[in-house]
């Protein structure tokens, strides 16, 4: 297992180099000049050129790129063009917020999703099953930003239970986590249901039943555990996506997360900030995938990591 982890970590290096190169090239191809955007209205050509050379944007592309990589290896992600602050600082202000939000959203996803899925599967074709599956269909289809605004309208403005926006206390987390977790929960519920149904028909479940094992024990110990592998995959992917930031939800609840920062940075052609944050997000994504792969082993001993 140790060798497996080391090998996977080493594999991330070419991935990250690839990511940085692709981001760099795309940002070069997109029209829009950071110096012009920074100089603002009424700047003269001369001032724009001066800014451009200060930012090093007048250097040939390959020099800009290699300078960048050289600095990254030394742990320096550069300075944001727009705010003049170190890119790492900008990311570190937002990363914990994003991770916390992603974590609680996943909690909503897993708890709601698994519960609904298991109930649905054990009561297949009942009214409960149908209602849960209809609810799941609606959950998947609701646009995030709309759900967020509706939650604010009812729980913040009308009943004043939770704050409208902001971050810091648990009350701030509830609505955004519900907003983000809902669609995931719906997917997980459907996933759990179908893979549970498959497992429930297996011989060993019948054997367990025949032995007289309690229904609840059969469901959670024998069936659910074996039905979890595809669910873990989905949860892992969801978590990875959430770490990349969730622009719309962050905007609705005024949460200072990575997603909004990256979108703003792209808008201002803040190359160092875009590069740096995408590198960090990619690294996190790879890390989450690694954790997902390892967790297969815990769930299903038959999985061979090597």
């Amino acid at each position, binding site marked *: 297992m140790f060798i497996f982890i080391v090998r996977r970590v080493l594999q991330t290096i070419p991935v990250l180099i690839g990511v940085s190169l692709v981001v760099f090239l795309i940002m070069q191809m997109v*029209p*829009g000049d950071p110096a012009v955007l920074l100089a*603002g209205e009424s700047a003269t050509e001369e001032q724009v050129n001066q800014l451009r050379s200060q930012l090093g944007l007048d250097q040939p592309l390959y020099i800009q790129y290699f300078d960048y990589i050289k600095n990254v290896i030394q742990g320096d992600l550069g300075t944001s063009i*727009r705010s003049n602050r170190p890119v790492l600082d900008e990311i570190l202000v937002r990363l914990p917020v994003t991770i916390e939000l992603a974590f609680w959203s996943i909690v909503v996803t897993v708890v709601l999703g698994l519960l609904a899925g298991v109930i649905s599967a054990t009561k297949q074709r009942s009214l409960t099953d149908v209602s849960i599956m209809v609810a799941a269909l609606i959950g998947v289809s609701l646009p995030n930003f709309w759900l967020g605004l509706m939650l604010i309208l009812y729980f913040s403005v009308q009943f004043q239970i939770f704050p409208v926006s902001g971050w810091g206390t648990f009350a701030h987390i509830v609505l955004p986590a519900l907003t983000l977790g809902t669609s995931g929960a719906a997917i997980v519920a459907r996933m759990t249901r179908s893979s549970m149904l498959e497992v429930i028909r297996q011989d060993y479940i019948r054997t367990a039943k025949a032995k007289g094992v309690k229904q609840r024990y059969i469901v959670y110990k024998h069936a659910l555990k074996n039905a979890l592998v595809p669910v873990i995959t989905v949860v892992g992917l969801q978590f990875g996506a959430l770490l990349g930031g969730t622009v719309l939800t962050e905007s609705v609840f005024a949460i200072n997360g990575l997603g909004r920062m990256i979108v703003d940075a792209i808008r201002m052609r803040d190359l160092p900030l875009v590069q740096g944050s995408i590198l960090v997000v990619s690294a996190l994504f790879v890390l989450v995938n690694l954790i997902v792969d390892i967790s297969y082993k815990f769930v299903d001993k038959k999985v061979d990591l090597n």
Partner: protein
Amino acid sequence: MKKIAMLMAISFLAILMMTGCTSEPQTGGSSDSEGAEGSGNGSAAGDELIIAVLSDATQLDPHTGTDIPSANVYHGKIYEGLVKQDENMEIQPALATEWEPIDDVTWEFTLREGVKFHDGTPFNAEAVKKNFERILSEEIASPRATLFEMIEEVKVVDDYTVQIKTAYPFAPLLANLAHYAGGIVSPTAAEKYGKELGQHPVGTGKFKFEEWTPGSQITLSTYDEYWGETPSYETVVYKVVPEDATRIAMVETGEAHLAEPVPVTEIERIENSDSMSLNRSQGLGTDYLGFNVQKEPFNNKKVRQAINYAVDTEQIIEGVYNNVGTVADSPMGPGVWGYNENVEGYEYNIEKAKELLKEAGYEDGFKTSIWTNDNQARVDVAEVVQSQLKGIGIEAEINVMEWGAYLEATANGEHDMFILGWSNMTGDADYNQYFLFHSEAQGTPGNRTFYENEKVDELIDAGRQETDPEKRLEIYAEAQKIEVEDAPAIFLRYDENLVAVNNNVEGFWMHPAGIYMIDDITINE
């Protein structure tokens, strides 16, 4: 199962730890800040003013400032200039108490005595001199240097007297000094932080910088040693809330006192609320639909005039802008010094439009495109114009672009017709006329219609140098007349500032340039 639980517990702990160590906000100034983070759902306290804004500031150095969200945090709050403008855009004393022209190119300023910067540095003539040297230095590369490039020398006469000498007579100097870029920064801080002053702002204003969580909020506190009166509350917090509906919900529930900007679609909601009201005031900006006059068929004046007749601006203001703002007749509105009320715009007259098109040789119309950035109101305007132009046989395609790409394309002259606005921070005609119409300002600086008229160039140059206000007014009146006649653009609308204000706030007003004036606010609990 146990192992999974264990794994989850470990990742949970790891997350908690990461959150714990890195979420410290960036702190500057004194450390006993009263940040409002996590202040929960309770109504805002009477000693803290909370403003919900669309965008975070980029940096707080006035000399390199280019955007209003940043200026709103520092202009008149952290920093003051030598002079300032009141609600009528009249020049009033700030750090200078008196001023007079000594000759055509020299102004003498008497400075306020006993003023100290937030870091204790005394304010004096030397500080003023260093500030202007900083703005004009290559090292700072200020995008605002254009406002002060005519300054040849700042001469220290004595501790509290300075003379500003310009290379040529420059009438709008006082207005430019009142611009946010004319904010006086502490020379000690400027030396210490250099280009990073934007993260460590130190001025002489009523408020001093406390802390900044980038992308989230900025906190300022009142400066006890301020030379004048200090506000009735202790701190002001700017909270970044990108979603319009959320921002307004915050004012509605009392989580914020002010919210800005307000989309025109939310006006009814605010006006019908029991807990908030709408503050409307005249702005200094003009929205326009420009033509690329270097390109066919817009190089023909008659075509431009025809389109002016064919577009019903009143309908646009009513339909798209929900009656916010007023119909524009000339490039600058009544709030701008130099506005000519005698200029007549184009009425809505399809027959005249058709006639002019025929004279220009485009009887059957032509195909063209309207460019805009991805701003909903502008896209709506483009659609209205598109349908109105159909009436005279012009087929216009709409090209919606992302902001950065749009700025670049229009600066390069790739466009046909385009929709933009021009704000006016100084409130002086020159800021409008020079950048929008002077041939030297073509492209990036502002003249994106690529308009060129020798007579207009001459008038704008003369307006800059004329010191007699009456004569200056005449010069700008003539220039505006020619510009409307030449029609490089359809002047659509003089804008209006909208702010949602919670009912427990008294004494708020909005400066025409879009700056929140919060000095006289009292918060009733």
